[in-house]
């Protein structure tokens, strides 16, 4: 009995390996990390390398922006600690350990926590949802054309459509989302359907982070075209200054980032917003000083 069980398990594993190798084998990113800790933000591809340099520079500017400096771009005069200098000059390599790639402001306080990652994948074949519904646990099939399947291991939910599209939601990181999507595809493969794993794309990353208390009224007055704040309707301010993203800013400093397409976008959004928000910091009613324009920080 036990032997046959272990044989089954072995077969399962081999099936999974077969799946991973031949079916779910889309274009992997060149230096994709396996299971990184979510907080240490590893930006590993080439583009994000470039961005972390920029981001590093902006972080240096953040530090020099003690809100009384008039030109934040003149960051050369920063009396840097050794870690800052490391940030400033070191070329960020892709295999560098996570810590040096993260700008100081994030290391110190403002670390985003990713709450939800939505992704979609095409399975490349039409699916008979009735058949799947009858032969699988954990499915809901109420709406015609859409099946809801849930798995436990990365605790996620998938909406499966008869066209073969799968939308996976509820994952806690991009990697997890990919694993979850692969698991769903694998489940369908076990039923005998000719699935493949095409065009996996992260559609949406939602994260929250906690910063310092902010005066939402002053922020609205300063950027009326980007901010939408109605205390009667919602206690948070919608900041739409970053293209493609919305940030909900609350008075106690909590922020929710919606609409990002990747973790890297979230990090860059934080690095754009936090220096700007620091000018509207709530400190017992003191007015803050010169604020750098959002444009300067964005188009560096």
């Amino acid at each position, binding site marked *: 009995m036990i032997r046959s069980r272990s044989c089954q398990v072995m077969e399962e594993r081999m099936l999974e390996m077969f799946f991973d190798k031949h079916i779910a084998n889309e274009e992997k990113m060149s230096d994709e990390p396996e299971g990184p800790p979510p907080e240490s933000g590893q930006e590993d591809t080439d583009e994000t390398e470039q961005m972390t340099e920029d981001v590093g520079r902006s972080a240096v500017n953040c530090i020099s922006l003690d809100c009384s400096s008039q030109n934040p771009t003149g960051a050369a005069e920063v009396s840097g600690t050794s870690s800052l200098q490391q940030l400033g000059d070191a070329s960020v390599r892709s295999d560098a350990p996570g810590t040096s790639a993260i700008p100081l402001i994030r290391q110190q306080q403002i670390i985003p926590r990713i709450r939800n990652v939505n992704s979609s994948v095409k399975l490349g074949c039409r699916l008979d949802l009735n058949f799947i519904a009858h032969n699988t646990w954990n499915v809901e099939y109420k709406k015609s054309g859409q099946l809801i399947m849930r798995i436990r291991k990365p605790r996620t939910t998938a909406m499966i459509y008869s066209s073969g599209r799968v939308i996976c939601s509820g994952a806690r990181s991009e990697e997890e989302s990919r694993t979850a999507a692969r698991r769903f595809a694998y489940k369908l493969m076990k039923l005998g359907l000719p699935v493949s794993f095409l065009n996996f794309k992260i559609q949406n990353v939602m994260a929250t982070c906690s910063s310092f208390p902010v*005066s939402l009224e002053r922020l609205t*007055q300063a950027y*009326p075209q980007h901010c*939408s*704040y109605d205390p*009667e*309707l919602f206690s948070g301010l919608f900041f739409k200054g970053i293209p493609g993203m919305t940030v909900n800013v609350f*008075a106690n400093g909590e922020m929710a980032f919606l609409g990002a397409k990747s973790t890297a976008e979230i990090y860059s959004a934080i690095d754009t917003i936090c220096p700007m928000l620091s000018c509207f910091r709530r400190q*017992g*009613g003191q007015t803050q000083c010169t604020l750098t324009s959002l444009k300067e920080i964005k188009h560096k």
Partner: protein
Amino acid sequence: MASTSRGDALALPRVHCPDHPDAILVEDYRAGDMICPECGLVVGDRVIDVGSEWRTFSNEKALKDPSRVGDAQNPLLNGGDLTTMISKGTGAASFDEFGNSKYQNRRTMSSSDRAMLNAFKEISTMADRINLPRNIIDRTNNLFKQVYEQKSLKGRANDAIASACLYIACRQEGVPRTFKEICAVSRISKKEIGRCFKLILKALETSVDLITTGDFMSRFCSNLGLPKQVQMAATFIARKAVELDLVPGRSPISVAAAAIYMASQASAEKKTQKEIGDIAGVADVTIRQSYRLIYPRAAELFPPDFKFDTPVDKLPQL
């Protein structure tokens, strides 16, 4: 001699003095002349008098205004009032054998603007319920017209758009009404009005100022029947509380309600939280929360010349 300008359907034929073509002519109503002020030449005679034919005494609610030859509506808002319609007949000849009137063309008056006219009527009704002045109603009508012509909010209920326009107009005029107050006179839910509000701001590319606590004080206090002293004290308290940043993140209406509570409790006219909550549209637990935030520094918040009926240390502590 006299030169007429063609193409002006409504304008009188323009005349100029031959010697002074640039002089602006003076009209003499009694004689019906147009006289050049430079040389005194009578340039046009038998000018049609556009004034009243007979005297009418100011009686605003008079049903018939005899000097009018058309409707007194603002033609700009309705896209021109130059339509001709067939009215209901009066004699026997206007009815056919079954008793129905011939020429039933009264309905299709201005079909494209029918929805807009309905909306104006609705706006007028809503505004009347909360006694809004004419300037706000006019502004609302203008906003509605702009939104309606843009067609970007076409799928939404006209009543919702009208309510949201009313809200925006009040804000723009500097006398904001809370969403709940607009809800009370409209059949639309607060959520829908809020949604339309945001959509309209985006469509018209305007923004509105933030509400402050002082905007609502006079209205809430007079609805509660509080004397002027208390109202001034409440305004002062609310403003001070916001300046000292004692109430971060609280809606200005909640802060105003708490300030009214504190001021009324310190005076002879004490109001309960429930009463204030009913008037302001705020839950009494919310007032309690905001009150708890401002209570510790109550002594600093009162205006210096306030006469306490109940001293600060005897204020209720919730």
